[in-house]
């Protein structure tokens, strides 16, 4: 009973302090000076350096999804609906979520570990006394970079995933590229692409926020750094699904209107 009360208290404390952290981010993000150079560097590190991983997973995701779904569709005699099915599932759900999870693993943990070790070795304090606002320099740039880069990564993953799916279709079902993408684009609407893109901005924000929060508030010692990296990934992944659920709910409301 006591442990339950304690864990509820811990949960509330953590939620409150993450919210405060997010609030501080918005507060600092709109105020000059802006760390453009560092932002660019972080965009490179988060966006470009994750690109290969995201493309590889996206491609395999397209292949696997098509291979798995195809037999069932054949059973229903609906194999010509494959492009529609795969297109919608990749663009609406699988692309954003898989990419975000990959990035939570790669980016979230690296941000958590980097900021954690900077905190532990007093580098953040050193920045503070050097007249640079470390929150702005470290946290704002990272959160902004991951917020901006994730949608782009999602688009890359979507494109390559659809291409992977097309490869299987063309090998197994003799579907031409023009036909495949024609059907995909005929099926997809803004109601599919827009919520998915907006959703991925939130995914990016959540990954950056949780990574920075965990790193910035990491406990002293090497153990604290490891813990920060680990809990950043766990919490970010969990948060992604919560956001995804909420996004689908909201998108559904708008879709019906």
């Amino acid at each position, binding site marked *: 009973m006591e442990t339950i009360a304690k864990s509820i208290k811990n949960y509330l404390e953590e939620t409150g302090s993450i919210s405060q952290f997010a609030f501080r981010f918005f507060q600092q993000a709109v105020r000059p000076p802006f760390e453009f150079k560092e932002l660019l560097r972080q965009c490179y590190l988060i*966006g470009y350096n994750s690109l290969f991983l995201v493309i590889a997973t996206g491609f395999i995701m397209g292949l696997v999804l098509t291979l798995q779904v195809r037999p069932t569709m054949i059973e229903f005699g609906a194999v010509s609906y494959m492009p529609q099915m795969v297109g919608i599932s990749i663009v609406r759900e699988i692309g954003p979520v898989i990419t975000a999870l990959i990035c939570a693993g790669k980016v979230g943990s690296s941000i958590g570990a980097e900021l954690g070790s900077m905190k532990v070795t007093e580098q953040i304090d050193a920045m503070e006394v050097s007249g640079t606002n470390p929150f702005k320099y470290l946290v704002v740039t990272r959160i902004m970079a991951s917020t901006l880069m994730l949608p782009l990564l999602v688009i890359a993953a979507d494109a390559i995933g659809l291409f992977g799916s097309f490869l299987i279709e063309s090998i197994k079902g003799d579907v031409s590229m023009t036909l495949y993408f024609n059907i995909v684009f005929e099926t997809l609407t*803004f109601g599919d692409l827009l919520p998915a893109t907006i959703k991925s901005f939130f995914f990016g924000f959540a990954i950056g926020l949780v990574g920075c929060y965990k790193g910035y508030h990491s406990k002293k010692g090497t153990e604290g750094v490891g813990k920060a990296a680990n809990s950043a990934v766990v919490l970010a992944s969990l948060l992604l699904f919560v956001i995804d659920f909420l996004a689908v709910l909201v998108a559904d409301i708008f879709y019906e209107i």
Partner: protein
Amino acid sequence: MGKENKNNTKLGLFVTIAILLFTVGVYYMGNKQNIFGSSYKISSIFENVKGLTIGNNVRYSGISIGTVGDIIILNDSMIQVDMMLENKMQAFLKKDAVATIGSDGLVGNMIVNISPGEGTGQSAEYGDVINSFARLETGEMINSLGNTTENIALLTMNLLEIAENINSGEGSVASLLNDPTMANDLSLAIKNLKITTQNINALTGQFQKNMNEVNQGEGLLGYLFKDSTFEYQINHITEGLDTLIRSRTTPIMENLEASSKDIAMVSADLKKIIQEIDLQEGLAGAILKDSLTAEDFKQTMENLSQGTDRFNENMEALKHNFLFRKYFKKQEKKRQKELKKQADAVVHR
């Protein structure tokens, strides 16, 4: 510094490609949904839109040409459907085109199908309202067919009853056969029938004469039949007819539906008539109640047989006509074959 520039270049490349992909995706989607292309509006008014929603496709003779832009309820039996169509369709879409609402495949989305009109009307302008046509759903068709079948079943039952009554010597027909008092009334009717038959005889004679003329290549019809140059024209006409039939499948469907309704009505009427006969009411009842003399009847029969002879003669004449020669030959062959078959069967036995 150099490294940083290189990294920024890579980042720039990545961002550019991703945004390009996004733009291309959005453009293609928009293209398919006709959002960016200039479009023009055509409306049509339906009684029931059957679940059509904004964004559903509009097809013109099967080609996707736009989407449903808006659906407005005008009053309790009129729903206006606005369609945003590609601009280039303006040249093809005439004012007499007809819009119907159907579904894309068995379980697909609802679509608006625009069938071209006669092709002679003016082009439809922006905002024009074209005619709509509410096609009967398969379900409704089956419903009305079901009604017809029910009526037929009832009819058959009544007929059976009548036949039974006759057999057992009950009812009007039986009494007609037994009752001599009806003879007088009936003889009058038979006399009339006789006159009619004579008229038919005369007409048949006339027809025979005409046919002979045809055979000899006289008269307009003869000229038409004999002249081989007309064959080409006939072919042409046939082609024209084909096109016409194709373009008119929709009205024919309509007629079919109407016919099936008519059949239902006729069956109902028939049923009513037979019931009336049963009750000895109406004209037929009266006729049957009339008495008849054997002589009049016999004369009528003679007239009829004469008519039949004439008819045979006509048929013979027809046989010689080139148009029907082939048919009769075929008939003959068939009969021969049948005979042979029978003979064979006998032999085998």
